[in-house]
């Protein structure tokens, strides 16, 4: 199976381990990710809030490129990229008159990566590829605020309490714990302008994750992973509490369970070192 793949800037930059783990597990699962040729920024960083044409035009170009290459499915790991592309699709469908120069009449199914993995690849396929069950690892899943919202745009059914990443991780043997903060905000890009807000929001996520009994947080969003991973030392100081919560991309844990060889290069790039935890569980 081949699928059109839009990595976005994060997966080529700060989220390289996300990209590498994604590519590795997809390969093992027999799905080829075909990166959109000559893709451009989705507009999430600032473009979308400055100009409507840019907001829609940027992701629309990527969408058109995917379509031109003959793909019907397009998978986007980054939450922000996914959201922007879905917004563009929504705008073009509902207000085509606003964008007379963009000729897109649908045909590409834009999917966030978790949905793609659970629906198009399927848990049964993954189960057969598991070499090492991650039994006993206690985790909370964190979807962030963008992937599901707004449901009228994303089409998400479980936007308050999404479960598909939970199901994937459960299949790997992980003990996925219930908590109420799966889709709360981590502060997002305010980390650059109002870090105090990020400290408060992300700090609460740590507290709640620990309260739920989690040893780590698993996410699918590169910005969330960045905030939660990078700010941990800082927030520890602010809150006068030592946090040590590894923050994984779910694809990294899939890779670990499936026996991918490069796991250590991925984990090396984390600021909160996850290897101690994984070693204590005898996964490394």
């Amino acid at each position, binding site marked *: 199976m081949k699928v059109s793949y839009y990595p976005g800037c994060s997966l080529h930059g700060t989220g390289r381990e996300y990209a590498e783990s994604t590519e590795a597990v997809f390969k093992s699962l027999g799905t080829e990710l075909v990166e959109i040729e000559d893709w451009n920024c989705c507009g999430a960083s600032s473009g979308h809030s400055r100009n409507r044409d840019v907001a829609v035009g940027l992701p629309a170009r990527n969408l058109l490129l995917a379509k031109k290459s003959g793909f019907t499915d397009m998978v986007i790991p980054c939450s922000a990229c996914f959201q922007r592309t879905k917004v563009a699709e929504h705008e073009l469908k509902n207000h085509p008159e606003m964008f007379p120069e963009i000729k897109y009449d649908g045909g590409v199914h834009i999917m966030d990566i978790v949905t793609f993995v659970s629906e198009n690849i399927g848990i049964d*396929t993954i189960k*057969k590829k598991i070499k090492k069950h991650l039994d006993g690892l206690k985790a909370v899943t964190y979807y962030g605020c963008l992937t599901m919202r707004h449901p009228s745009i994303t089409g998400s059914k479980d936007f308050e309490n999404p479960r598909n990443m939970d199901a994937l991780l459960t299949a790997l043997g992980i003990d996925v*714990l*219930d908590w*109420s*903060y799966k889709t709360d905000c981590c502060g997002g890009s305010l980390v650059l302008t109002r870090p105090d807000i990020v400290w408060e929001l992300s700090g609460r996520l740590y507290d*709640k994750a620990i*309260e739920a009994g989690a040893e780590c947080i698993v996410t699918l969003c590169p910005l969330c992973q960045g905030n939660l991973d990078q700010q941990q030392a800082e927030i520890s100081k602010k809150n006068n509490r030592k946090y040590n919560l590894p923050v994984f991309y779910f694809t990294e844990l899939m890779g670990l369970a499936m026996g991918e060889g490069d796991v250590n290069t991925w984990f090396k790039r984390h600021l909160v070192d996850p290897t101690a935890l994984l070693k204590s569980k005898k996964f490394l």
Partner: protein
Amino acid sequence: MTESNVVELKDKRKSGAGVGAVMVVGGGIAGMQSALDLANSGFKVYLVERNTAIGGRMSQLDKTFPTNDCAMCVISPKLVEVDKNLNIEIITNAEVMALEGEVGNFDVTVRQHPRYVDLEKCTSCGDCFKVCPVSIPNDFNYNLDEKNAVYKRYPQGIPNAYAITKAERAPCVLTCPTGINVQGYVALTGDGKFEEAYKLITERNPFPSVCGRVCHHPCEEKCNRGEIDEPVAINNIKRFASEWVKKKRDKEGYLPEKPAIDPSKPKIAIVGGGPSGLTCARDLILDGYQVSLFEAEEKLGGAMRFGIPKYRLMEEYLDWDIKNIVDLGLDVKTGKRLGKDFTIKSLKENGYKAVYLGIGLPVARKVPFKGADLNGVLWGMDFLSSVSKGDKPKLGKKVVVIGGGNVAVDVAMTAKREGADEVSIVSLECREEMPAHEWEIQDAVDEGVKLNPSWGPDEILGKDGKVTGIKLVQCTCVFDPNGKFNPQFDKTCENKIDADTIIIAIGQAADLGWINDDSPVEKQGGGIKSDSLTLSTNVEGIFCGGDVAYGPKSVVEAINQGHEAAESIRRFVEGRNISEGRKKPDREAAKVPKDRPYYKRKRYVADKTPVADRKGNYKEVEHTFDEMAAVDEAKRCVACGICSECLQCVVACLPGAIDHSQVAEDSSIRVGTVVLAPGFDLFDAYKKPEYGYGQYQNVITSMEMERTFSASGPYQGHVSRPSDKKLPARIAWLQCVGSRDATIGKEYCSSVCCTYATKQATLAKDHYGDKVGATIFLNDLRTFGKGFDRYYNSAVQKYGVRYVKSFISTIKEVPGTKNLLIKYINEEGQLVEDEFDLVVLSMGLVPSESSKDLAERMKIDVNEYGFTKRQDMRPGETSRKGIFVAGVFEAPKDIPETVMSASSAAALSSELLSSSRGTMVSNKIYPEEKDVTGREPRVGVFVCHCGINIAGVVDVPAVVEYARTIPGVVHVENNLFTCSTDTQVKIKEMIEEHDLTRVVVASCSPRTHEPLFQDTIMEAGLNKYLFDMANIRDQCSWVHASNHGNATEKAKDLVRMSIARVKTLEMLHELPFIVNQDALVIGGGIAGLTAALGVANQGYMTHLVEITEELGGNARHLYYTLEGSEPKKYLADLINKVNANEKIKVHLKSKVIKYSGHVGNFTTEIEKDGKRDSVTHGAIIVATGGVEYKPVEYLYGKNDHVLTQVELEKRIAENSTSLQQVKSVTMIQCVGSRDAEHPYCSRYCCSAAIKNALRLKELNPDMNINILYRDIRTYAFKELYYKKARDLGINFLSYDEEKKPEVSAGEGGNLKIINYDRGLKAGLEMESELLVLSAAIRSNPEAKMIAQALKLPNDADNFFLEAHMKLRPLDFANVGVFLCGLAHSPKLVEESISQAKGAVSRACTVLSKHEMMVGGIVSHVNEEHCVACLTCVRICPYGVPKINNKGVAEIAEASCQGCGNCVSACPRKAIELYHYKDDQIISKCEVIYA
């Protein structure tokens, strides 16, 4: 009731008139009220209810607001009343499918769904319930606890009978190749009934021990639980049940009962002792056939013994299953090989009429292989077989197994146990494609077996004739695109594995060397050709099935073949068609029931022997569940098929009432009109996922809270939260969940939630005081009903309930405690987060699920929310003539309004059908009563077993013998069920035979059964009062279940007491009097006019008395309504009709002075122009109206720019141009309402303000309109206009009662208004050209005088007080006097119209009768003892006792309700209550101590 004494009155319809019958759809409180009103005013009623019992939502409530009466206590008598009414036919478990015809003559198709319990036979003893193993969430308790698949909706439910619920069959049942009732045995195991579970399994599967270990359990793959978390471990449960029974039987030395062999049936031969052969043999033996089984090996079992390694199936269990078959009487001939020891021909010659070949595939499939002849090459199946026979096949240390199937895996693991150090499996398939089961591959891997997937053997390498290894080539693809086996290899990619033993396990083969002329069976492929449906071969009478027919499959499939073979053989020897009806139809499987939340529960996993302990031995790898695990795991079953058809109930039901064969039946019923009262459902809480319903255990709905409070609810009335059953210390209510919410398409207000939340919070505080904190988060407080604001005030002031106006957007759960976090803006305006132990979602109302179909079938219009479409000024009507609506289907409303609308719908129906009144009703005629006065009592006693309900505890025969010894008793007997129909016949016979004059039944509760037995003795000519009941069930056997001896003694005491009393009882007679069929209506406003016209249209003469000189009342000032109706026009039309009606006599400028008489016979004095006149009539309707309050505040009357809403409305309607230039208008709400002196809501003013504001906006869209309010109370669909007003820019600014707006004269004639803003904590100043006051409604000052004249009660606000605020809102306690309109409480014009029609319906229950009965159980004054102290006059709740002209108290028989209050209060003991006279009570006490 027997046919002979029920007389159907002849159909005396006038030609052209409608049918004198009405169908009421929905058996809730609305349907019941409509039905009772109609049946009591001369119409036949069909009451169709979709549930198994009537009672509706009200039966699920705990208390009712604002009086906190117990809902069940007030509804229960109504249930009995409906049940007893001869002219109401209750049709439960039914739905209306179609309606044809026109008003007056509708043909309604009603579908009766199967109840699976015969209503005639069910005695409601509950024995079926006790044995039913299937627990499903109890919908009556909103899934907070469980009920069984056979259940009674609630204890007081009518009809008083059980019912069974079924869905489609569960997928596990449909999937199992052997057709076991899987759901059934899982349920029985969950219920601890392991023996029963085992029996159910073995009905279809004679190898439960085997299958419990080796079955590939396709049932689990289809299990619906898998959609929630993981499938139920069905196979482990089966294994546990059979092992439990095995252990028990081993201990007890159990021997199976041998079935009788029928010598007339022919001999049958079975060849092959595998699963299919043994199953076939067993089926035929159980049918009485003589069966011989021939097996080539020395032991039975076939592939189960020789193909399955012992670490998966120990011989002990296989032997046990086989023994259970052989012991039935099977003639077993082992060591007999087909072709060698016998032939098909020889079997026939020896008299076997039919033969079944189930000979399996016992040998390995051998294909030519390079190097296969080398020493060290073994074949898979042969290897397994020889190991299991105990031969030690020679094995090296390095073993390679070729093959990817289950046999290959078994071979590999067996090789390990036989001493091999290294074992590898080589398979063509990649890991995912390997045909072996995943869990078996995993076991092998765990034990250290290496997998080499995607490799094909090229050549077995050898040296010196001995195996040294194997050469492999890469297999690129096993199957072609069509899925056919067609392996492709890449020869360039080679591999080599060293080995000293190669075991080739690539298939099994049949042993068909015996086929020859004596056994001429046709082959196919490697096996035998047989018909897949009938298993017939080419030779007549020879059948063949199992692996040899279709290739290697599973044990369960083989078992199924055995069953099929037996069926074919039966048909063959009996000469029947062999294939007819054999093909199984595809059936839809049950789905996961969606009506409940599911919480994840991990599947139990059986322990396994540690890998280290498996080496070199054949210990079982997997272990059996222990009892706890089996039961607990079985309880994970969601019972998706509901009833599992285990048939335990059929065995338990002694009256034989259970009938699983029932199917749905349609019938056609002709009626004149239809009343729709399908009620409501709660909004679906899952549609507001931010509140986590179904995710957080301690978030519940308001109806779940009702059941929590209820004494008969899941927690026996102790408020507990679901997660830990502890008392929640902090409870939060969230208002408007599913109401006033555009995001979910429910913009309307549900009307009742504010008050019911107030009730629940009050009850919590009342029960638990300071132990519980109650907080209600709300938008507007909408306690707009009669007495509701007082109720709210008491919640705040007396109980300390906290109300916070803040809308909650999300709930979070605290892990561990499962408490809930809510963020809100507090009273001080700060954002805070609070923790609560329990959150109650105040759910909005939506039309019941069934009403969508109902509306379509009735072809009536509904609005966008699914409620009936409003008809302008015609409440209760639908878009189709003759179809009326009652209750919430019209709009969200509370119980009293529902009851009013139900009476109104009844009146609308009866008005249309008035000419057919009395044509369809039946009366029961009893034989003449025998006079027993003065005769020595002859008592008959009937003691009931109630199945085992009584007899299981009380020694019934001992009670019977005891009763015989009591003087006066001439006949005693015991009955299995005294209430059953045949016992009624018997009681009548005994009365006749023994000339009984008194009857005692010792059984259950008189509440449910006394009317039945009274009816029976009346049929035998005894007065119904010569009867007494001893409750030896509810008050004896049930409460003393653990103390049999004393319970029997107590039962004797109870019987002795009843006999003592029955001997003192007297015949009582109810006497008829003639009813005056005229009515008196007091008040000529819109309510009075509507009522007068309504009564006249029903065919009765009406006197309409109006105190002023003009008809019309307040409606004369009503120009338009919020919805756009024009009441003035309506009123003019109404007055014309009233004036033109010959049956209405209008008395203007007239006053009611006084009245006398009783229901059916009143005389009233009316004064006009100083002259008095008296009229006689049978009923009174009070419609004296109300008045608008004239404000004294806010400069009203002092400044021309200040006016009331009524005055503004007049200006808008009559002089709108004067308003077009007005730039600003301010309105102030609650002027004269909801203050300390008048703590009630005037209800109409919010609507009036908004309707006038909207009109002003129409006149001048730029007009600035401010509405200063406390709570906007636009209930139901009025909310849409509130939203529209906001959308149009009308400003709504709230004010507090403590800080009312300040009004002063401003510049240029304008008004200056300062309103305190809570958010800003400052006064906001505004200028306004006009100030409009929303003035209160006050009761009519004249009403007080009328209350005195008619001796009617007033409430604290001087409105009239009805008989009961919930269920009798239109009645006075004084029988025959009714109430409607503003006289009752403030309301809107259409509500007055609806009430007036309702009052007509209530009055017609009197007026329609030619005669009424008086007497029976009534109080009687002994005039000689009476000293006229007035105690009885004061205490009587119905105002019946009067001091007569003799100066003593007199109690009118016609009015007395028989409550007995006066009797107990009378200080001189001058009053006695018939049937409960002192000596009748004392007689019981005397015998206790005798």
